[in-house]
């Protein structure tokens, strides 16, 4: 019997797990994918929003602001890349200016620090590659960017180190409320827990509706993105939005913490919760909208496109806390934007409620800090030399585009909650996320994974078990 079972290994589930792992609780986390950070948490803009556009007084507004304030020290403790690069919200017509002012007023109401209105000249001075026809904009200096993979992974690792049991490739089928506990049927057997945290992203409504009469309805809202080579990563310095639409914050042009340029997302509601495919129309839309923000979209530098699904709940706000009719069933549902920005604050917000409810006591010993796999590329020459001297595997480059070494790949495999897949390696080290997109390094990483994990190369997968690469030996099928 677990004290707490968390359903979902995304950024929210992992934030809650990290917070609770400091307490004397028996905690399990169930994740259907082969790794944490596999769904919405891996396919988003990686933006830490300033909090301007959340509705004043909403949970989104409060927790976004808190998350934003916490992010810097939180990321420092966990060794997660975070840059407070500031964000801009642009309007292009005089007729849109009143809407921009309204947004500014809302920002003031939300107590977003340091925001100001900039005119065309000031904007172009700040960002010379903007569309010269920009009319005006809001600068929000507290806006930032974060590595969404690391934000999830590093929290998960801390939780795991503090004793949280992670059950990967464990699909939850059904949750049943018993007398004073929950019974959870999964693909890996039956689990029991006193308390459930439903952080199942786009599936959070299904689990809620299995136990509660307060029905939730989550609609997957697809967002498609184009990612560009680091060569054009410094085209803009700020995260640049256009005036928001009812469906979302519109298409963003932003640098990433790794130095790439990112354009996206689209925002349209779909029916299929599994549909993370990109579309011709979507990618075209992103590029068209991007062209409005910046002078020129450097199409010859696109390295990949991807899509993610936001978990949009009909009421428009986060649904956080204990279910009204099911004691000890805690929801973290409707985690669309600004879910990533708010994640550290949500961990505290929900974690607090849960530890109070369970009257949990802090452990005597637990860790709060984490250290990421070293980024060899960013080391100075002297440091590089020292690293290779101490471990020859640092002298062996596996991913040429991102300069990732054998030592880093091996470490990514052998860390707590280590990588078991090609995508897992990519999110932990960036191997394969450069301009050749794994063309060169993926056979090598497959080989390293197979050796380090003592697995048949044919079993090594991209992400889920079914996504393997090799079908047999040469001539085996003849």
């Amino acid at each position, binding site marked *: 019997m677990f004290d707490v079972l968390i359903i979902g290994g995304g950024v929210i589930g992992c934030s809650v797990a990290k917070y609770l792992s400091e307490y004397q609780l028996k905690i399990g986390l169930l994740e259907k994918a082969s790794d944490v950070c596999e769904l919405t948490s891996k396919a988003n803009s990686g933006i830490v929003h300033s909090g301007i556009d959340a509705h004043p007084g909403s949970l989104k507004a409060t927790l976004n602001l808190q998350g934003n304030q916490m992010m810097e020290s939180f990321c420092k403790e966990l060794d997660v890349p975070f840059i407070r690069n500031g964000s801009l919200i642009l309007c292009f017509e005089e007729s849109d200016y009143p809407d921009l002012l309204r947004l500014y007023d809302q920002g003031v109401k939300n107590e977003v620090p340091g925001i100001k209105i900039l005119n065309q000249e000031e904007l172009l001075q700040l960002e010379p590659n903007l569309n010269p026809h920009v009319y005006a904009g809001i600068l929000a200096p507290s806006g930032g960017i974060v590595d969404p993979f690391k934000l999830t992974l590093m929290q998960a690792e801390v939780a795991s180190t503090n004793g949280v049991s992670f059950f990967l490739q464990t699909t939850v089928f059904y949750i049943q409320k018993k007398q004073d506990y929950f019974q959870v049927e999964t693909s890996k057997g039956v689990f029991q827990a006193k308390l459930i945290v439903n952080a199942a992203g786009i599936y959070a409504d299904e689990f809620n509706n299995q136990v509660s009469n307060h029905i939730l309805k989550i609609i997957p809202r697809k967002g498609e993105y184009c990612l560009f080579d680091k060569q054009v990563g410094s085209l803009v310095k700020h995260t640049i939005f256009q005036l928001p639409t009812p469906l979302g914050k519109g298409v963003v042009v932003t640098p990433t913490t790794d130095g790439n340029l990112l354009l996206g997302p689209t925002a349209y509601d779909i029916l299929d919760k599994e549909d993370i495919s990109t579309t011709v129309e979507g990618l075209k839309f992103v590029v068209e909208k991007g062209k409005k923000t910046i002078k020129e979209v450097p199409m010859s530098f696109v390295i990949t496109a991807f899509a993610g699904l936001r978990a949009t709940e009909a009421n428009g706000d986060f649904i956080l806390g204990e279910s009204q009719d099911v004691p000890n069933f805690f929801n973290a549902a409707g985690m669309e934007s600004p879910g990533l920005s708010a994640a550290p604050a949500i961990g505290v917000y929900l974690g607090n409620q849960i530890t109070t409810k369970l009257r949990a006591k802090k452990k005597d010993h637990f860790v709060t800090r984490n250290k990421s796999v070293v980024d060899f590329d960013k080391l100075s020459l002297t440091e590089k030399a020292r690293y*290779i001297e101490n471990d020859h595997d640092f002298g062996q480059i596996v991913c040429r585009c991102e300069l990732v070494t054998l030592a880093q790949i091996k470490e990514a495999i052998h860390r707590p909650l280590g990588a078991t897949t090609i995508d897992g390696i990519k999110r932990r080290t960036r191997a394969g996320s450069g301009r050749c997109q794994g063309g060169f390094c993926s056979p090598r990483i497959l080989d390293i994974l197979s050796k380090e994990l003592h697995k048949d190369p044919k079993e090594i997968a991209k992400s889920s078990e079914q996504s393997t690469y090799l079908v047999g030996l040469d001539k085996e099928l003849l």
Partner: protein
Amino acid sequence: MRNVDVCIIGGGPAGLAAALSARKEGIENILILERETFLGGILNQCIHNGFGLHTFKEELTGPEYAARYVQMVEEASIPVLLDTMVIDISKDKVVTAISPQAGLIQIQAISIVLAMGCRERPRGALNIPGFRPSGIYSAGTAQRYVNIEGFLPGKEVVILGSGDIGLIMARRMTLEGAHVLMVCEILPFSGGLKRNIVQCLDDFNIPLRLSHTITKIHGKYRVEGVTVQQVSLDKTPIAGTEEFVACDTILLSVGLIPENELSRKAGLKIHTTTQGPLVNDRFETSIPGVFACGNVLHVHDLVDWVSQEAEFAGQFAAQFVKLGSQISRLLPIVCGYGIRYTVPTTLCIDSMKTLTTVRFRVTDVFKDYYLDVFVGQVRVSHQKKRIVAPGEMESILFKKHWLDSKTEDEEITILLQKE
């Protein structure tokens, strides 16, 4: 810091030929840096035949062609550092490299020859919509799995792009037991060599679908199929021609890009079309003493031309060590009608060789055209070309005397004309 006269970045066919010719020019202190644990570069995984017809007057496989050069380099006792990856080249020609054994090393060179080769364009560069499952490989990655590691990466295969590696892999996958359903080419003609279309597709009854492309990838985990669609001349998919083709594997042979991250870091000027460094007739880049040859300069169809080009680059690199820069007045070569790019892009009026090979590619398929060369307003060459195509690299022997009494304010134009 180690001092080297000629430092060669890359031990593939270009680097090896450059090293040998620098040695022939009398340079003793040469160093080849190779990131793999063996010399020969990508030739080692090109186990098919068709190499060396021009260089050795016989047909060799890739590894055989490489082995001949490796042997010559060994016989000449040219120093090589294997398993050594260059991570930086500075403007003042300091080369920084790392290796597991030697750690971090720095080399001060007088001449540098860039011979890093090229890499394949990935799916992302094409923005093909759909899911991102496993089962999508660049043709070269699949070639590595099959030819080096002994694994078959798929059973039912659709190949996108009819570049030479794609064609070669269509045959290889078939021979190794996979079923190649088709090769789709977005252009109305193939970018590969004619002989490869005959020997790799026709001989195995593999259909080549010209003016067709993949417009969607299906399958959430592993590829389950593709939507193949006909395209118009401007490459726009034509509605109503969508066809679902079930397959578990997609091979992409959609172009090669010279690998010039180091060149960019060093601040070399890069050609916007070839994505290789801009060079003059001595294969010298925008930094005096830094030379480039082979696929890092522009993508070749035949390794024989790589070797030939590299031999010159090595020779010029050696001369730079002995004599310093030889470059004075440069005339630009302008691409006229039908010419996509030329290598080199400038010729030195004073120091160019009596005969200099100018290589180029054309923009389209042209039948019965004349290849004309103008210096200023004067036509200096007029050659009939029965057929030229983008897939086959062309060349012209440029005569030094064409530039006699010319000045720097003139330019050279190469173009195709009907008459």
